[in-house]
């Protein structure tokens, strides 16, 4: 995973893997829920 390598005047912000997990979960859970709902609906085509 790439990290910023160049200089910056802003304060350091070390992003923990926990923050990364929470961020992806925040958007991933609703998305997976929506996709699963659609998938179930799509299955009716094959019944």
């Amino acid at each position, binding site marked *: 995973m790439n990290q910023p390598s160049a200089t910056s005047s802003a304060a350091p912000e070390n992003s923990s893997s926990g923050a990364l997990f929470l961020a992806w979960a925040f*958007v991933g859970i609703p998305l997976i829920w929506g996709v699963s709902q659609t998938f179930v609906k799509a299955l*009716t*085509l094959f019944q």
Partner: protein
Amino acid sequence: MAEASLLDRSRTIAGPGYNRWLIPPAALAIHLAIGQAYAFSVFKKPLGALLSGDPNAPAPADWTPAQLGIIFSIAIVLLGLSAAIFGKWLERVGPRKAMMASALCFAGGFFIASLGVHLHNLWIVYFGYGVVGGIGLGIGYISPVSTLIKWFPDRRGVATGMAIMGFGGGAMIASPLSVALMDHFKASGTGSLGVAATFLALGVIYLIFMQFGVWTIRVPADDWAPAGYVPNPQHSALITSNNVSADNALKTPQFWLLWVVLLTNVTAGIGVLETASPLIQDTFSEKYMGAGRGVTAAAAAGFVGLLSLFNLLGRFFWSSASDKLGRKTTYGIYFGLGIVLYALIPTLGNTLQLTLYVVVACVIISMYGGGFATIPAYLSDLFGKYQVGAIHGRLLTAWSTAGVLGPLIVNFLHESRKAEGFTGAAAYQTVFYTMAGLLVVGLLANFAVTAVNDRYNEKGPVEAEAGGH
């Protein structure tokens, strides 16, 4: 000098150590919310029966489907217009302020529309969801694009594909969520079949959800680059290291060629999406398939759901693939393969090959979604990352045009065939052949894309100017 607001671009510059993989979730929070627009159709039936109270038996004074269809059309037109108008403002103020503006407009649109439903005043709904909400859609759609490209210069397609995939996924969340909310509020006896209360609730939910994107988004420092990043490793003439401003981009033939590319790809895709449910029911009805073997309304809804999934997957798959294949080749595949598949659809319908028909339609829709997701990276390759958000915003007027043009063409051709006495697959034949013809135009436009002439490039450093810091 007044202290910069927390929303200002200068307050969003990431410090050393910030993980760039936090940016796609921030972008997704915006796109998953505004993607709700594609699920607006779930409100059409209840909105059309507010006075009668029975969606299956509207009163004479109830709003008609045609009147309700205008709400979505206004929103899509405003999406394109606001993306074009506010693109340069976005580049100046940065993504955080733009995302906040988008959240306020999008949620505000729901609040105003809720009032319109409560008062049974369609003009207020047009203004709320269509105009105010549409502006939120446009600003929100382009708000993370240039930031993602700056964070992922080595994987532009992957990054923009993830965000724009969210726009497709948003409808998948909004559709069942809206139905559940309407059922809940209807059972609670809030009136208006639960629609007004659902609009209010959605406004609140999306306002909160989008705040995650607003406060997570960061822009990289001007001198930042991913570790080990090598610009243009493929040495492609179509990937520039220069920068073209949004105003200058409009003067180039490349911008207008890509406008035609997006227009034709989207118009053709809408041809399938717009008619998906009646298309498969008419083509594979009991009349042709035999008793008990025709495609039912429920199965057709499953077909629409399947197309939505491929629309979503295509956005990520094709856009990511374009990082390896190159954008021009990827669009060449959309158009080249698309022409063959669109031309094949009527034959598959006439010969009643249902499975193959579904597979072909899914591939077509994956390329429709891919077209949306790949275009920001294509623009960035050709014009640089300086004002790519603003250039993308202006290009989205092609989407608005296709949103109006596509359904018009499809309905006109289909109705004409029906009037001539054609039924089943034959009634849609000219629709698909016309769409294949449109893709030929897109193929030629894509083929004509070359590197931008040097005279349009910005002279001197541009990042500080864009960033204002």
